[in-house]
């Protein structure tokens, strides 16, 4: 026996033991981070059914989908008429900037404009695309009902109270707003004439 340690053998054992330890620690992290992801019942609640016929003409209803607020508006013929005539004021009139503002059913210029499957029922995620506040519904044109909280040529739509973003009645963002995008759409489909499945 000598006092000389076999360094290469010792290094191998260090690396092997350290490597196994690192792998084990890494594996142990998986369940802990995993537990912080949405639980099974939270995922199961990720679809919401809603009957749009419960919304009166001209009314806005806020419902919950995946814990997020969603606007459902029953747009009257006047409201629908307010969609036209201010494309030059919009950042993204045809909702083409990012995936979240578009949908595969937007196959006609009409649907791109109204941003809904049935023109009268607009359904959008109610979070301002700036930093997520819920915009206020200010649907009528001009300053008559809203004073100078909206511009003089206000086409009617939403006004975000947090940092002043403006959206038209199709929830398209107006030039000069801090918000970069139109309000997001979420996947939804009609199960019957008035029942929608959101998510």
């Amino acid at each position: 026996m000598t006092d000389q340690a076999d360094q290469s053998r010792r290094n191998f054992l260090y690396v092997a033991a350290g490597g196994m330890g690192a792998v084990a620690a890494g594996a142990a992290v998986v369940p802990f981070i995993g537990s912080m992801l949405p639980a099974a019942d939270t995922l199961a609640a990720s679809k919401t059914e809603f009957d749009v016929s419960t919304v009166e003409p001209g009314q806005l209803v806020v419902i919950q989908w995946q814990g997020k607020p969603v606007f459902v508006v029953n747009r009257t013929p006047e409201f629908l008429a307010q969609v036209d005539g201010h494309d030059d004021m919009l950042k993204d009139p045809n909702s083409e900037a990012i995936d979240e503002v578009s949908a595969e059913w937007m196959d006609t210029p009409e649907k791109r404009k109204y941003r809904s499957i049935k023109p009268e029922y607009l359904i959008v995620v109610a979070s301002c695309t700036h930093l997520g506040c819920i915009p206020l519904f200010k649907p009528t044109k001009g300053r008559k009902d809203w004073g100078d909280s909206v511009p003089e040529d206000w086409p009617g739509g939403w006004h975000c109270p947090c940092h002043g973003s403006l959206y038209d009645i199709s929830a398209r963002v107006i030039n000069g707003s801090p918000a970069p995008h139109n309000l997001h759409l979420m996947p939804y489909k009609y199960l019957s004439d008035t029942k929608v499945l959101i998510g």
Partner: protein
Amino acid sequence: MKTKLFGWIDERTGAEAIIKSQLTEYQVPKNLNYMWNFGSLALLVLVLQILTGIFLAMYYKPSAALTYGGYTVAFDSVERIMRDVNFGWLIRYMHAVGASAFFVVVYMHVGRGLYYGSFKGPRELLWIIGVVILLIMQGAAFFGYLLPWGQMSFWGATVITNLFGALPVIGDFLQQVLRGGFAVSDPTLNRFFSLHYLFPLLLAAIVGGHVHALHVVHSNNPTGLDVHEGKGTIPFHPYYTVKDAFGVGVFLTIYCYIVFFNPQMGGYFIEVDN
């Protein structure tokens, strides 16, 4: 092999000297047997309990309010952890099995101290700190046991708080302070959760004092004679880091077997009623 960052920290904290004197070159008797592994195992289990507990607390709700199903918010939140939360079953079993394992390990640790006379001078304070640790552990485990708000939890807490009520003169007062009411009820559950979170953190601090007290007087050894004068000691690293790591491996093997294959231990680790 000193990196620039470590050098910067060392200059301002003396970290290198501390690590050398308290860990790598800390002198330990060379004749310790495996009974001396249980201190480091207790430390491991304490860390495991705090870690799993933090994650359980992300989903657990300390409320005795009734739910539509006819159970309670607390009970349902534990059931949700078992059924719906990703790996919730694993984290809960780790915590429940860990609680029992903690006592097994600490009883071995204390038994070692009794058998080899480690409680005698100069280690009296070390022993006294240990006794304080044991009492706080019992408190933490007792508070934790109430949290699922099952039948065993409820009656367990009723019996033990009644025990305090049996004390002369101050009994009634103590009992009401513990319960926050005249029976074990919602306020009891809330304060038990608060204290259940606090106690292990207290333990972490006191264990620091325990190890410091140990490092002043050094470990005892199976002969009971002082071996720190002559050539009786070896540095902690690599000798006892490796020996402790081996103990950790053996412990984790047994622990994982129970967690994965027999988490209730026939009702000894988790009562069927809970």
